[in-house]
């Protein structure tokens, strides 16, 4: 019998157990018991990286299935799952950057599929990898501005109030983010300064 207060031996939940990685993968696909899809989408919104959420989800399933065969069962399953999703995001960012550098213009179907860009913003699918790599290489603040204002739909005043920027700073950040995405070709500040300063 386990003594009170003694650390519990961690064990893999049934859906992360199997004869091989294929079996674990199949468990993960069946109803998404680890909520990988939700975790991946949330993590992208928390880290402000522009990657297709379904792509991250599908890759994360592979990462998790292999990691479950290589790692000891973690005491903190949520933390372990988060780490695998972060690893997946980092791998995709690196792979896209490497591909953009070594094979410009040669995209896989997976790399040109990003409905957020191609349907909502009508970006040419052939430009998807180029613009997302440029965006994801930006410092955190411009990426955050894009996510808060365009993805989350925050109002400018609320966004400024939450900080860490003032109106000018937020404007500079969103301008930088849009420029990286190829959405801004202004040589100079546009004539209509978009944010009205608070009196």
């Amino acid at each position: 019998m386990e003594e009170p207060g003694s650390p519990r031996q961690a064990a893999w939940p049934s859906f992360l157990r199997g004869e091989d990685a294929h079996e674990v993968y199949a468990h993960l696909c069946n109803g998404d018991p680890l909520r990988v899809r939700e975790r991946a989408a949330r993590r992208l919104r928390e880290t402000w990286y522009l990657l297709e959420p379904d792509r991250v989800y599908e890759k994360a399933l592979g990462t998790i299935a292999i990691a479950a065969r290589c790692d000891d069962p973690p005491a903190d399953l949520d933390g372990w799952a988060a780490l695998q999703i972060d690893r997946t995001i980092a791998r995709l960012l690196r792979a896209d950057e490497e591909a953009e550098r070594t094979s410009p213009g040669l995209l896989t179907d997976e790399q040109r599929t990003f409905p957020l860009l191609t349907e909502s913003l009508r970006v040419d699918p052939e430009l998807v990898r180029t613009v997302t790599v440029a965006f994801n290489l930006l410092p955190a603040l411009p990426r955050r501005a894009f996510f808060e204002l365009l993805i989350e739909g925050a109002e400018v005043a609320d966004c400024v109030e939450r900080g860490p920027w003032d109106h000018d700073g937020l404007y500079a950040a969103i301008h930088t983010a849009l420029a990286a995405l190829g959405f801004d070709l202004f040589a100079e500040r546009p004539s209509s300064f978009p944010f009205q300063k608070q009196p």
Partner: protein
Amino acid sequence: MKRELEIDPEIRGLLEEITSDPRSALRLAPRHALRSWFERPEPARTRDLATTSAERHLLEAYREEVAEMLCNGARLAFCKAPVWMHRALDSHGHVVDVTAREPAWRKHAARVCNASSARPTGKDLLIACLEEIDPRNGFAMAQASLSLIPRDRTRYFLALNAPWDSPHLALAILARLRGRVPPELDLHAARLEAARLCTAGRLTRARTIYLELVRATGSSAIDLCYALNLACAAGEPALALADGEALNRSCSTSDPDLAEAKDLVGKWLLTRSPEDRATSLRNAARVRSRIGGPAEAFLEVFQA
């Protein structure tokens, strides 16, 4: 039904201005926030993932895992038989023993080997290292890792493990890496380049790199020691004196990095020709007679 948030009118105005420019990649200014793309329900096709793309995703993830193990193995391989490397010291001045991580690496490598029946490039090499990492396998491990997953971090370990009798190979890899070295390896890559330049006989360029590191880090006793050594080797006592004075401003005689640098330079001097060694000793003696402190302590290595 969840209400769709509208994008702030000021931002929408900005987007509309951009879309009006025919050169812009943005062809449509959305009215609503794009969050719904991150909140889509599970598509039916997800249920078919297990049979359709499972093989591909699993193989990709497995290649990543093997590549990472090989890259870390290449690092361990070099650390088991380091060549001209200033070893990192902990806060107590003790050498950080990277090779102590080998048992944990071997344990994880065994699991990675058993995790899949796939045989990607380098898996045989990984299996060969399960008993013990052979330092001679470092270059092959880095090569195999790179062929699985191209990464700048792996390119650094490839350069690190490149045969020391072909310095130009390492220098060519480092030249390709320039400007793209992962931040945590930045200093190491610069020092590796300087060490390889020394092996190639390009002492002046190597000294310039050490001095650039001194400037970049504010004040680095390690790099000043090596710059001072190379100034002596190049027959430049005035420059050596300047390096010595800078060294005296950057550390104390008890700095453990000083002892590590002395040890490394002592070994390096033994590889030099009698004429080259005589040049170093003569210039070091001239500087030593005019300087005290840490620089004098470092220059003791030239008396042996």
